[in-house]
């Protein structure tokens, strides 16, 4: 926790830190989630507060179910996830809407407009409407913190789970927030509270609860009318803007003089307040990123307004896009014409164990059904060894479907590739299907012992909890055999030739098989601390064949030389350069050593 200024107690917090603080102050005692950018740091930060139980669940569905269970005992409970995670958790979400809560239950969903770190751009606000649940949307860290407290009050007052929607520009924005406060203490201790007619959702009970849900919707809409975070600011009455979240910030910045209805409570909508605001302005604009969520509902009220006819539906809004959309004028950069620069995409780290596997998959020319994680970078050149990537755990099912569809024609031509955390998340059920319905799809589990992409969160195979305490480490070999895979082999992905042989054998096998490539991520603390024995280029031996460059390792770069320089160096005149290893970056994984046929890569002490 960070104090913003020396002379007062205000705080400087990232949205996710502020959200965690808000949850702590709201008296949350149970929180479960699955890592996913931009939501991850909420739970990480919350895990540092005393007296709050936090956990990483194998997936979002389990996280939400656990939070539902905790709230049934009267405990204020939280589930956190990114937008696509809410798809996984949608099943319990829709029925928890019927059961209601005992202690408060809040689900935070972090959207990622512009897909900074996501595979799609879905608008999670639609879930509020579909599941008939109230939703709050903060615009910055200070609000995120306050809204968490309000969300728990609403949850308990209206007997409902509450959704809080954030996005990348709330989660990963830092801002000033008020001083820390003492956490809320509930009046009752956690206990078993039996209420089967409310909690057992068999049809007879569910039909009764269904009526309650509709009644609650009306009550919530009424509550929204007097909700303190739905604010009308009347300025110039010619332009009226209704907005929530970061869209409000961009609109406010672009049109400081305009009139605003800033919504904090975005579902169900406060119709009276909206009508009152609309009647005070000449032209009404609904400024929102992604879907016309507010716009469609406001139009359904019979209120004329502009929305997606001018506001872009794709990508996150900015001050500039809102200004241009509404006024037609644009503060253009005098330097609009960019200069062409070499791209700088993200890359696997120097010494990343995944690299060796993807190098081999490229050699094997198989169709690689990929998945979500750092290893999705295997798609990029020079490895270029990924052919599809849909969602968490999809690789296994996709490869099975391809195998069944292609029959003998496809044998030896496709694999599924997914990480340890992704396998646990939803990959295992895919593998069960592969075995049960017998296909030859080979599943490769890239086991680097950690959920790396989101910043190294422990998972059920890591052997530790969110707090770093020891935990059971799931045994992949045993579980694969237990679901019926007869051929399970484990390799070290840094050993390229040996790995190639194993992969070739298993891929060609006409029955289910699993290859586990096991080596820890170079960025986990134990690996970082391990003394490094970097390799170096023996420049005299390098012929410039570029074999090692095919790995795409950031520690190896090409040094061009002129024909004269080549001769001067004692090389053939036609040699165009040599590969140079950056010893500060090299961690000594040795993948390139295996590829070099000219003994041009060696350890210092070996030269």
């Amino acid at each position, binding site marked *: 926790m*960070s104090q*913003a*200024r*020396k002379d007062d107690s205000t705080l*400087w917090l*990232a949205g996710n830190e502020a959200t965690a603080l808000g949850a702590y102050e709201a008296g949350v005692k149970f929180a479960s989630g699955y890592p996913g*950018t931009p939501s991850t*740091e909420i739970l990480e930060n919350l895990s540092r507060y005393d007296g709050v139980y936090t956990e990483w669940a194998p997936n979002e569905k389990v996280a939400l179910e656990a939070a539902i269970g905790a709230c049934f005992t009267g405990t204020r409970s939280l589930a956190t996830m990114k937008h696509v995670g809410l798809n996984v958790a949608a099943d319990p979400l829709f029925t928890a809407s019927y059961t209601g809560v005992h202690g408060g239950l809040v689900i935070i969903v972090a959207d990622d407009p512009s897909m*900074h*770190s996501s595979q799609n751009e879905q608008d999670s606000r639609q879930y509020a409407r579909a599941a008939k649940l109230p939703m709050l949307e903060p615009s*910055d860290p200070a609000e995120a913190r306050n809204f968490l407290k309000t969300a728990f009050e609403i949850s308990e007052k209206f007997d409902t789970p509450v959704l809080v929607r954030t996005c990348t*520009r709330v989660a*990963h*924005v*830092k*801002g*000033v927030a008020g001083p820390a406060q003492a956490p809320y203490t509930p009046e009752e201790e956690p206990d078993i509270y039996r209420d089967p007619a409310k909690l057992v959702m068999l049809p007879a009970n569910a039909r009764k609860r269904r009526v309650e849900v509709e009644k609650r919707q009306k009550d919530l809409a009424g509550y929204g009318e007097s909700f303190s975070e739905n604010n009308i600011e009347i300025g110039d009455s010619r332009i009226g803007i209704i907005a929530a979240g*970061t869209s409000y*910030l*961009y609109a*406010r*910045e672009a049109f400081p003089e305009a009139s605003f209805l800033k919504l904090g409570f975005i579902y169900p909508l406060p119709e009276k307040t909206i009508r009152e605001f609309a009647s005070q302005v000449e032209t009404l604009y609904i400024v929102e990123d992604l879907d016309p969520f507010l716009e469609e509902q406001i139009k359904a009220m019979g209120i004329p307004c502009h929305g997606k006819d001018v506001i872009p539906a794709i990508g996150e809004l*900015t*001050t*500039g896009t809102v*200004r241009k959309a509404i006024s037609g004028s644009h*503060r*253009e*950069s*005098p*330097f*609009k014409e*960019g*200069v062409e*620069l*070499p*791209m*700088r*995409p*993200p*890359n*696997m*780290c120097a010494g990343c164990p995944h690299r060796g596997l993807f190098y081999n998959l490229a050699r094997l020319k198989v169709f690689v059904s990929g998945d979500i994680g*750092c290893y999705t*970078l295997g798609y*990029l*050149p*020079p490895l270029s060894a990924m052919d599809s990537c849909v969602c968490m755990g999809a690789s296994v099912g996709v490869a099975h479907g391809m195998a069944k569809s292609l029959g003998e024609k496809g044998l030896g031509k496709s694999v599924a590739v997914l990480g340890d955390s992704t396998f646990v998340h939803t990959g295992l059920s895919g593998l069960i299907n592969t075995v049960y319905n017998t296909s030859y799809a080979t599943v490769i589990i890239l086991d680097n012992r950690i959920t790396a*992409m989101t*910043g190294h969160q422990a998972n059920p195979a890591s052997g530790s909890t969110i707090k770093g305490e020891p935990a059971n480490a799931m045994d992949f070999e045993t579980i694969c055999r237990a679901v019926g895979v007869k051929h399970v082999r484990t390799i070290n992905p840094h050993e390229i030739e040996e790995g190639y042989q194993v992969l070739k054998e298993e891929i060609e096998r006409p029955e289910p098989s699993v290859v586990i490539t096991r080596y820890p991520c170079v960025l986990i603390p134990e690996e970082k601390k391990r003394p490094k024995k970097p390799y170096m280029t023996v420049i005299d031996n390098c012929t410039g064949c*570029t074999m090692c*460059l095919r790995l*795409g390792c*950031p520690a*190896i*770069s*090409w040094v*061009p030389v002129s024909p004269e320089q080549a001769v001067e160096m004692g090389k053939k005149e036609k040699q*165009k*350069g040599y590969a140079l290893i950056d010893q500060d970056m090299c961690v000594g994984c040795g993948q390139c050593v295996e590829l070099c046929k000219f003994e041009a890569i060696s350890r210092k002490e070996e030269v």
Partner: protein
Amino acid sequence: MKEKGNIHFCGVGGQGILLASELCAYGLLAAGFDAKKSEVHGMAQRGGSVEAHLRYSKDKVYSPLIEEGTVDVMVGLEMMEPLRYLHLLGENSTVVVSRQQIPPPAVATGKTTYPLHCLDALRERGIKTIEVDALAIAREIGNIRTANVALTGAMSCLLPVEEEVFLEVIETRFPAKIQEVNREAFQKGREAFRLEEDK
């Protein structure tokens, strides 16, 4: 640049952009400004281009993102990176840039060469560009990880915040072990900026 401003940090994942922007933000907060900072986490950090937007004002800051053409100071931790964000720069922008070059994949694999004209490209457009050899300063001090703080020191000359305020931020917020090197890096960065500006 007094009551409000927009600062853009850019570079390559792993160069310490978050720390540089954080040091800058704490200095502005200590001087009584409101501020918002937008960062990018996740996938982009794996050796890719990374940026942070920092906006400050005596009044409330709304948007966490800098609008096109309105950057006051751009801080480039890697030499070519400011050019990638040209659209954010305006006629009155100042670019404070490190001479450090990190070859992107296409350069590292010999498919293309490093765009050595990148600083000329800024100057040709009339953009005030101050070069600082931040890595050399960091090497001289004996800790190459302080290059980001050296460059922050350099750019701090353009902010309405006294040097003392930043030094106090380093003293109160950096781990004890690395306070001294970072203080030195910050001050050397400021000196380098002044020398370069006088040229």
